[in-house]
């Protein structure tokens, strides 16, 4: 959906997922190097590493696919 401007809702969602994914992934890597004293259940699966990576990749895909520059180019092609 377009908002009437050049930013799509999917771009905002992409930014949100990418930023959150990057933070969680970075924290996961930090915990691999410095394991925490109090560990959650199934800590050994390192969910924050792979889940953070999944969110980051998904977020980057949305952010690039619906980036303002691409949206402007698409709209220009239509008109």
């Amino acid at each position: 959906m377009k908002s009437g401007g050049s930013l799509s809702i999917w771009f905002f969602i992409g930014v949100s997922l990418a930023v959150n994914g990057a933070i969680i992934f970075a924290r996961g890597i930090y915990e691999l190097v410095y394991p925490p004293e109090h560990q959650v259940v199934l800590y050994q699966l390192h969910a924050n590493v792979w889940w953070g990576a999944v969110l980051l990749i998904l977020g980057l895909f949305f952010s690039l696919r619906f980036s303002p520059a691409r949206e402007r180019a698409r709209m220009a092609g239509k008109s």
Partner: protein
Amino acid sequence: MNPALLVLSSSTLVHLSPVDLVIIVFYFALVLAIGLYLKGQANTGEDFFMAGREMTAWVAGLAFLSANLGSLELMGWAGNSYKYGILAAHWYWIGAIPAMLFLALIMMPFYYVCKTHSVPGYLKLRFGQDSQALSSISFALMTVLMSGINMYAMAVVMKVVLGWDLNFSIIVSSVTVAIYVALGGLRSAIFNEVLQFFLIWAGALLIPILGLIEAGGWDGLKAKILHNLTEQHAANPGAYTHLWSTLGNFSDNPMGINWAGIVFGLGAVIAMGYWTTDFLVVQRVLSAKDLRSAELAPIIGAAFKMMVPFIVILPGLLGLALLRDGSGNLLRLVPADLAWSPAGQAQGLHGYDEVLPLMLARYCGPGLLGLGITALIAGFMSGMAGNVSAFSTVWTYDIYGALINKNATDEGKVRMGRWVTVIGVGISIGTAYLVMHAQSIMDYVQALFSFFIAPLFGTVILGMLWKRATKAGGFWGLLAGTVSSVGMYFWVKFDPSSVRYLALSDKAQDQAQNMFRALWCWLICVIVTVVVSLMTKPKSDEELKDLVYGLSPIPKQEHVRWFQSPIFWGAVVAVAFIVLQIIFW
């Protein structure tokens, strides 16, 4: 302050790290940025109240679902699945999917063709101003009260889970919602609802994945639940993992309900009423850019609704199977009033509704925990925003524009909409503090909200499908249904033994009572509407054009291939729904 709340400040479920706080602050910054960005796109009434009617089917469909996917819903139904087992999934499957498909394929053409701004607006066209006034005033009042309850519930959850001050949570969330809805109107609310949808899945999906790994898959989960409940001497422990096979008798399942209550009370009345006539959700679909998108939107919503039990019901069941206290003994959750009593707090008890945060804390360390908490906050704020934007529309079009200032200009309506958004948030804050001092008000208001939905469905469906229904029939049917529902509620409140007449069993729990009350008041609404209509003069066919089935030419849609048609995707969703019922029978 309520004494129970003072006790709550003594303990918290989880502790946030700086990484978690960064994620939460980023969420608030992003929603405010979205509101500011959309300010320039909400200049006309169509823009502000209907999001310009330019949403794609995907956006309208996800917003349609998200408007209902608040945190009260997430935490409440996770708690219900801990309490009632997989029976709680009925509220996501038979209690939603058939109604969503009915809205998409049968009712949406009427809403869309008559170009109404709201459900009360349709009632005005079909039954006249009396019915519109009755439904719009009730809806506006209930909506803004529900928004306040959402706000209060969020503040309590933040206090229980994180130890945050109640006033801090209420002020921060309400100011944020007021800013982004007043600036961008429905478009802003919809943007944030779709954002919330992704955040909820991103924040909650890990719980069932990790939970199933720990439990040893679905079979391991069932075996653990059976073992734990047998140890607790629960009646019929097997019933917690079966959807239909224990609904033959009231006493065979933990909810005290039978199949008739689920099929007719929940599926045919409550679900149909909520998903097809509650303007909070219908407004999202009305914002679609064309009729095909408006029909596809609820079908897309239904497809995702079928998956929600994975992140709501499954965590409740996993809690039943896996949660242990510090000594390794089974952790038994209890009703909220017991858990929040001073004695309960002294013993370290937890309420049913705390199962989702408990599971979150079990598997999620710093970062993931912040995302999970952000998903809960986003759910609460989006629930508030949904209520406030629907309130603003109904107030401006159906009360202000219809009863107070019939000559209001479009510009004046937008100005009114922005102010009413801020005022609505202000009233919600007042409600939140009112509820804080008298918790029983929350029960009454939630019950009042449900009183209205079932009879409204009776009135709207007769209006759409039966051309003989008259103005007087519609009004008196709606009034009789609402009054009888309120009457039945207080009958049980003052004489608990009457539940055996109302819900056909003295074992009926709250949810079972709600189902049967809805069924009876819907029947009363329909009977009164039919009888009064047959005694009064109907409108001519010409007056009912575009409002009633058979008299409304549905506009031809652009040619689409069979796999792009709403009917095809509706059939796919219906088949998937049936398969799920068989798998979990």
